[in-house]
């Protein structure tokens, strides 16, 4: 059956996720409202600017509905900014300068706290430090050699015991999993490799959600 996968469409790399999903035979839906989530078998929080997306989530009152979606056991994937939003906490690499007595602390986006990890934002630097590189050897076999594109990327730190590492790059964890929730600090939607989307949708779905009992025959 074709899976319907929502992509949160407040801002960011929505279209590229939709394209990757279509390539693996899933049906992509742009979603903005809690009622839209009911139509989704799985959901992606895309990359973009985490502060901008978080403010959109405030306005659209999406925090609680997204938590409820995750608790329903349906697969949830956050990439880059989306991964920051899934984390227990987001921190900045460097504290922001104070302006008129307003420090940087308030500037952090709130997070959903769905994955027991700290996301350190812009940890590699600005755009001039962005890069792409293959995942380290030792990633799960289905993702061997996956090319990871890091754009103003966060770094995952202080992983909790329930969080498993599916891939590393240069020794750092870059793809995490906690039950049906996956978080990537890179952009699997950039480039032509749909393996990660397929794996997330197939594997996470089958483990988190047993197939429904067959409908009774008339």
């Amino acid at each position, binding site marked *: 059956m074709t899976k319907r996968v929502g992509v949160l469409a407040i801002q960011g790399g929505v*279209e590229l996720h939709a394209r990757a999903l279509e390539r693996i035979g899933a049906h992509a839906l742009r979603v903005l409202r809690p009622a839209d989530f009911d139509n989704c078998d799985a959901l992606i929080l895309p990359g*973009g600017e985490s502060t901008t997306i978080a*403010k959109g989530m405030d306005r659209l009152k999406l925090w609680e509905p997204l938590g409820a979606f995750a608790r329903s056991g349906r697969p949830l994937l956050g990439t880059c900014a989306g991964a920051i939003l899934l984390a227990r906490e987001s921190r900045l690499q460097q504290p*922001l300068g104070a*302006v*008129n007595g307003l420090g940087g602390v308030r*500037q952090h986006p709130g997070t959903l706290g769905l994955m027991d990890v700290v996301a350190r934002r812009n940890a590699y630097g*600005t755009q001039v430090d962005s890069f792409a590189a293959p995942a380290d050897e030792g990633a799960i076999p289905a993702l061997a050699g996956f090319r990871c594109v890091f*754009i103003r990327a966060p770094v995952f730190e202080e992983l909790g015991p329930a969080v498993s590492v599916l891939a590393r790059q240069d020794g750092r964890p870059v793809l995490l999993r906690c039950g049906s929730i996956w978080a990537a600090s890179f*952009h699997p939607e950039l480039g032509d490799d749909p393996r990660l989307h397929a794996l997330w949708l197939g594997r996470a779905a089958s483990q988190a959600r047993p197939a429904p009992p067959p409908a009774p025959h008339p």
Partner: protein
Amino acid sequence: MKSEPRESAQSLELKVGLAEMLKGGVIMDVTNPEQAKLAEEAGAVAVMALERVPADIRREGGVARMASLAVIEGIQKCVSIPVMAKARIGHFVEAQLLDALGVDFIDESEVLTPADEAHHVDKHGFRAPFVCGCRNLGEALRRIGEGAAMIRTKGEAGSGNIVEAVRHLRQVNGDIRVVQALRKEELFARAKELGAPVELLQYVHTEGRLPVPNFAAGGIATPADAALCMQLGAEAVFVGSGIFKSEDPAARARALVHATTHWNEAEELLLASRGLGEAMPGIEIETLAESERLSRRGW
């Protein structure tokens, strides 16, 4: 050094990648840290660090250059969202300075006084991606050929008048539709007419879009202006003077972000458009002398 094939920020894919992440957002012109904080707080997806907003450049005249390093660094230190800055057309040393400063995007902009009347910057060798303005498909593809990772309309900066941005959006998208209707062998002559690299024109013919994101800029003053650009096919918007030359910049900034997310929902646009106070004063384009039209700069 590792032996693995690591690509640096000079790769066009990484530059376009950041442009992709800015889609659906509002990039706001700011001239100091207070304005930058206000923009970030309102939900801006990036800020453009400037010495003066276009409306003031227009009013005060003189040579407009890259912002001072103090202005740019002050803004970089106080926000976590991407910081862009403008270099003069063809001024590759201003671009080198911005690259060394680690800005997230360089706008090779007609809003500043051009430094070269024949050549734009060769944008390939930089780590920072570039955005350039255009009025039509040929100009867009020339800039992409030079290495631009994002294209925006030129609009008429600092005018508060959306008519030029609309003209440029319609022109680029109309030009694309015409190219799509051509036969393959007709693309060579069309490339010559447009003054565009033929490989890029072939991409447009096959894909029906530019190879990089296409944003709107120049003259956006209201949430309805932003939504108009989005409905005409822009993928994000730049707002220059429209915020800080209006009566209530914080409310207007939030409203522009709101309208850009919900560009196709009239009910949301209605909400975004209420209670904003006065928009910036506008200028009728016909009253501008040819020499005062910033959109005519570049080629």
